[in-house]
């Protein structure tokens, strides 16, 4: 009970700031007669968000599926790689420098090339970009998490004659979970960005990124902003889905220790 109350209390300042920013935005445009192509009024954006719902929302869903696919593939491979790196030293030694170097590559710059590799009109090229963006943060954090069990905890398990596999299952994996969820939260937002940016370089006409891009090119800025609004909402939805999953899985965490 008190937990719910405190949570509501935690949200209040953020909500106040949000409302103030929107109000200031709306007020500034009205007061200084700012041209609509520079910055449309929030009320107009919301209106278009509703009137265009038959084209906009399916486009959002299409792109969301790409992001979701990329998120699942990239995060899954990241966790798998972290597990392999943790279990086989030589694999880790060979793999880690390459992974870190790869992280320095601006992945978004690869978007046109991914388009060529996977057919630019298919959702697969966007999934690939989202997956690549998600992979490394998930891998690095999972690795740190798998190493986060204390030596004493491992010693205690050895005193129970636990095998390496049992220690992994009962100690290393649960100890890693908070780290994994921190990474998944980062990846959830990256996945949506990856999918949208991928679509800027071409994609199905029913995709949100393509829609935003073509609206902007034809100076149709209000629908473009409505598309951005939808993209943000979908990114947030994925983020909060991860947060909800974390609440269910990492039940033991003290409320203060919660990141984000």
């Amino acid at each position: 009970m008190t937990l719910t109350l405190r949570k509501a209390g935690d949200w209040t300042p953020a909500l106040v700031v949000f409302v103030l920013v929107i109000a200031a935005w709306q007020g500034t445009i009205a007061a200084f007669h700012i041209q609509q192509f520079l910055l449309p009024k929030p009320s107009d954006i919301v209106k278009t968000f509703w009137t265009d719902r038959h084209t906009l929302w399916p486009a959002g869903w299409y792109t969301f599926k790409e992001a979701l696919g990329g998120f699942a593939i990239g995060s899954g491979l990241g966790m798998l790689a972290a597990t392999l790196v943790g279990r086989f030293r030589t694999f880790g030694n060979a793999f880690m420098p390459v992974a870190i170097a790869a992280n320095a590559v601006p992945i978004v710059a690869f978007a046109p090339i991914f388009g060529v590799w996977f057919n630019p009109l298919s959702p697969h090229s966007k999934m690939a970009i989202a997956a690549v963006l998600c992979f490394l943060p998930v891998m690095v954090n999972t690795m740190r998490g798998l190493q986060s069990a204390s030596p004493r905890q491992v010693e205690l398990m050895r005193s129970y004659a636990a095998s390496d596999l049992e220690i992994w299952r009962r100690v290393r994996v649960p100890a890693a979970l908070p780290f994994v969820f921190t990474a998944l939260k980062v990846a959830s937002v990256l996945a949506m960005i990856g999918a949208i940016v991928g679509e800027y370089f071409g994609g199905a006409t029913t995709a949100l990124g393509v829609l935003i891009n073509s609206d902007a090119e034809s100076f149709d800025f209000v629908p473009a902003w409505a598309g951005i609004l939808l993209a943000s909402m979908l990114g947030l939805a994925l983020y909060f889905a991860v947060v909800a999953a974390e609440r269910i899985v990492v039940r033991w965490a003290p409320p203060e220790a919660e990141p984000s």
Partner: protein
Amino acid sequence: MSEQQPVVEIRNVTKTFAHGNVTALQDIELDFHPREFVALIGPSGCGKSTLLRVIGDLVQPTSGTVTVNGKSARQARNDRDYGIVFQDSVLFEWRTVAKNIALPLEMLRWDKARRRDRVAEMMELVELKGFGDHYPWQLSGGMQQRASIARAFAFEPALLLMDEPFGALDEMTRERLNLELLSIWERLQSTVVFVTHSISEAVFLSTRVVVMSPRPGRIAGVVPIDLPSPRSAETREDPRFFELVTEVRELLRKRGEHLLPEEEPV
């Protein structure tokens, strides 16, 4: 197995670290008998924690042998013949208190009903009744350590290894837990090997104090503790208690000289 066969036999154990440059233990010879409460005391670096880990087969001796319950230390570990308690409670933060205590029982493949009964019994013994569904972070340090002791005793091992279990607790909590530990020990009749750097704690708890000296880690002397049993708060005021404390302190001073353990005057 005869009643008087030692629970632990340590023969000629030497342990070196860092490619032989540091001798943590040298030619240790010790026997621990059933239902003994042995305190290992010595300054930092005397190898007392290492010796405990050698007994538990968590560290391999460079030479010499350790026999536990008439078997090799390795076999004894694989048979789960001992329980261990560390300075910090080493509770698994993702398990509730009850599930932490149940962990060794899960490892021993006890069925659920049997586990639940034993956990309830242990929580009552360490006065944690009603805290079974709490997570470790919701408990005080003293309560966490009690949970850790309950876990170690839960499967009634013949041998309990304790590595400065109360070292991180305040003096009042420590004295209360000392008494609780003794009452559990008297009830369960295990053999306890208790590492500490507190002279008064060693004398108060044990039936025998093994004094160790550092560099290389050796046995400086053994002091049998003939205080009346069961011990109580009054034991600490017994003149014999002070004589024994002095005896242990002098053994430490003779061998350790400037390397006395950090200990407030008793």
